């Protein structure tokens, strides 16, 4: 049993934290959010070249730093603390995750492109009707000569406006919610027939509605096995969930810190409001929530390579904890900040908005409770 980080892992955290400390102030982020492009392409380049973090979770054979999911956890926690917009999750965790496990002939080259910052991916999986069911797909990929033709509509594809490629889930067979017949494709976003409508999101990111209208893609766009993609999707999505749990922990940690600081300096009734017991207990409960969330994030991250059953159970348990804690910590942070917490001017509200989106991302508390019940109770009976 060991919860310590290696020297390399600590260095990764320090390097990223100090970059973000210097270059990613709240005001800088606000300016990025309001800019036309909505992000800092130069920061992405710095992540690739100056910091080298885009290779953090890849093996050395793939050109990476030889890390794993723990590296993703470290990076995402720091991203959560600074409310980083740039698409580490969509590109490194998800795009890189699919490629890493795909056995694709060009996987090494494509991962090289991710590590170098040239390939940026966005995950086009959700559909307007499907809620959090990864198999609920109306998007189709029909065989056409040696390649495929894509048709369908993907909802709220985070980071799509900045992406060079889309990771698309589609049906090559089976019925709408069937486990079999699901395939994954890596699609060049410049392909003819892709129509996007881009927009900002409430937590300062950018997303698109993506329509595929008879989009011809080559045979080697297929990632993994045709018609048997769901287990791979579940694995990568579980890794993504562990990563956003870490991001949530980072955001919650900052909300708690900001709240303590505010309560210590804000005076009412002749004393700092931190002296009121009703608020002290609330801040203690926030602390407990952050610590429990961190524990669950460690647990889930360390179980990502176990059997699909154990991995899924661990990840859903963590997501339930993080979803509930994001709500509790976020609401308490705003309440204790009073009117100031309601303003766009203070960072705390922006953490709250991101935390709120993490609650629902890749499945609400209800969704993951149900998944956990199924894995832990139904399957044991």
């Amino acid at each position, binding site marked *: 049993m060991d919860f310590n980080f290696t020297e390399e892992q600590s260095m990764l955290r320090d390097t990223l934290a100090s970059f973000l400390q210097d270059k990613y102030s709240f005001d800088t982020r606000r300016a990025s959010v309001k800019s036309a492009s909505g992000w800092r392409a130069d920061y992405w380049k710095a992540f690739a070249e100056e910091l080298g973090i885009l290779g953090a979770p890849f093996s050395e054979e793939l050109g990476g730093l030889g890390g794993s999911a723990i590296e993703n956890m470290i990076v995402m926690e720091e991203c959560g603390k600074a409310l980083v917009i740039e698409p580490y999750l969509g590109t490194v965790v998800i795009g890189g995750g699919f490629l890493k496990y795909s056995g694709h002939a060009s996987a090494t080259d494509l991962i090289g492109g991710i590590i170098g910052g040239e390939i940026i991916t966005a995950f086009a999986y*959700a559909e*307007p*009707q*499907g*809620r*959090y*069911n990864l198999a*609920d797909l109306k998007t189709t990929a029909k065989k056409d000569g040696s390649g495929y033709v894509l048709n369908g509509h993907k*909802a*709220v594809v*985070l980071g799509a406006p900045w992406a060079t490629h889309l990771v698309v889930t589609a049906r090559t067979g089976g019925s*709408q*919610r069937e486990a079999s017949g699901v395939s994954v494709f890596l699609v060049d976003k410049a392909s003819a027939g892709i*129509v996007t*409508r881009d*927009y*900002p*999101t*409430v*937590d300062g990111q950018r*997303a698109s*509605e993506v*329509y595929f209208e008879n989009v011809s893609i080559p045979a080697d766009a297929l990632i993994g096995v045709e018609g048997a993609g769901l287990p791979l999707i579940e694995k990568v999505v579980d890794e993504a969930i562990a990563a956003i749990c870490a991001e949530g922990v980072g955001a919650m940690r900052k909300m708690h810190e900001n709240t303590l600081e505010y309560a210590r300096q804000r*005076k*009412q*009734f*002749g004393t700092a409001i931190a002296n*009121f017991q*009703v*608020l002290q207990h609330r801040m203690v409960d926030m602390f407990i929530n952050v610590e429990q969330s961190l524990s669950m994030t460690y647990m889930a991250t360390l179980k990502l390579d176990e059997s699909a059953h154990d991995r899924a159970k661990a990840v859903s348990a963590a997501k339930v904890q993080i979803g509930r804690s994001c*709500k509790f910590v976020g*609401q308490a942070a*705003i*309440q204790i900040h*009073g*009117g100031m*917490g*309601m*303003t*766009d*001017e203070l960072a705390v*509200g922006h953490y*709250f*908005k991101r935390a*709120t*989106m993490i609650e*629902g991302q890749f499945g*609400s508390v*209800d*969704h993951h*409770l*149900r998944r956990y019940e199924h894995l832990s109770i139904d399957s044991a009976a």
Partner: protein
Amino acid sequence: MNLDFSPEDLAFRDEVRAFIAAHYPDSLRGKQDEGEELAKEDFLAWHRVLAAKGWVNPAWPTSEGGPGWTSTQRYIWGEECAAADTIGIMPFGINMVGPVIYTFGTPEQKQRFLPDTLNGDIWWCQGYSEPGAGSDLASLKTKAERFTDPADGKEYYLVNGQKTWTTMAQYADWIFCLVRTDPNAKIQEGISFLLINMKTPGITVRPIITLGGEHEVNEVWLENVKVPVENRIYDENKGWTCAKFLLAHERSGIAGVARSKRGIERIRQMATTELGDDGQTLLQDPAFKRKVAELEIDLTALEYTELRTLAAESAGKGPGPESSVLKIKGTEVQQRVTELALEAAGHYGAPYFRGFPTDGDNMRPIGPDYAHRTAPSYFNVRKTSIYGGSNEIQRNIIAKMVLGL
């Protein structure tokens, strides 16, 4: 004891329902339901229709021009307005300063302000909170010093200070302010209640943008603002009496039962369109259904507590500290309604539409319309457990005033 409406009440319900159907301005239809942001003229359009009918001020006594409705009739009115999705009436004049003026004002003050307040010619805002005086309102620092202007020989106050969280001050014609007139008195005893014309030189309004991107609240800076002494309501240094009276009134309207009912109705509609993970409607999802049921039950408890309070009021008891119960539970329910709506919206809770074309463009839609404002509403409604005396303060009031602790 019974829960039935009398035949008179039922007739009243039909009358107000028919009136709303016939007279609610077409320009406003659907705006409340869609959660669209409203302009000053939108608020005034409905206000003026009701003022002409004599219904804009349901809670005012007939002696002050109120319609003389019973508490049951006021309840029915609230229900019918919510069911028809009418926009709200701005509370600052009708529910706040109006009752202060007719309770504490001179005949001249009542004549000067009440008719214009009723017909919508004065838009009021509330100058209570200050950067250093939120929950601890009585620690306010804005000072008003009395002087005689040699130019006209009249007495004025010279007002200096800063107010904050001033809702809709950007539209306001007048502000009612708590100011310190005696810096040496005990903190609650040196305060006066002043009415200040927003066009007076020295007043600056600066917007505060809130979490959902809205501009609802403002900072109001007062620098050497000259206010005639006759604009003071009630005695000098007795403003805290007016303030407490007003806060109790503010709390009694704050439960928002009818609006929350309508909110739950909207969630039920959303959840019959939205699908769950299994392709059934979300309303058939046992976990979601359970949450809707719990919320409805909590709202029912709140509703009957409010009805009991209204009945006690109409039996001659003014709103007392029990109204803090309505504030606490009312705001908690409002917040949960927005939480559940955001949850129902699923992925489409994420897109942000402010400053973004949504209607009338020929671009492809971004999710269903009902999802558009679920996240901003959720963020915005966090304010309700903070404003009007935070819910922590309300619990202190109950502990002290009701339980005697």
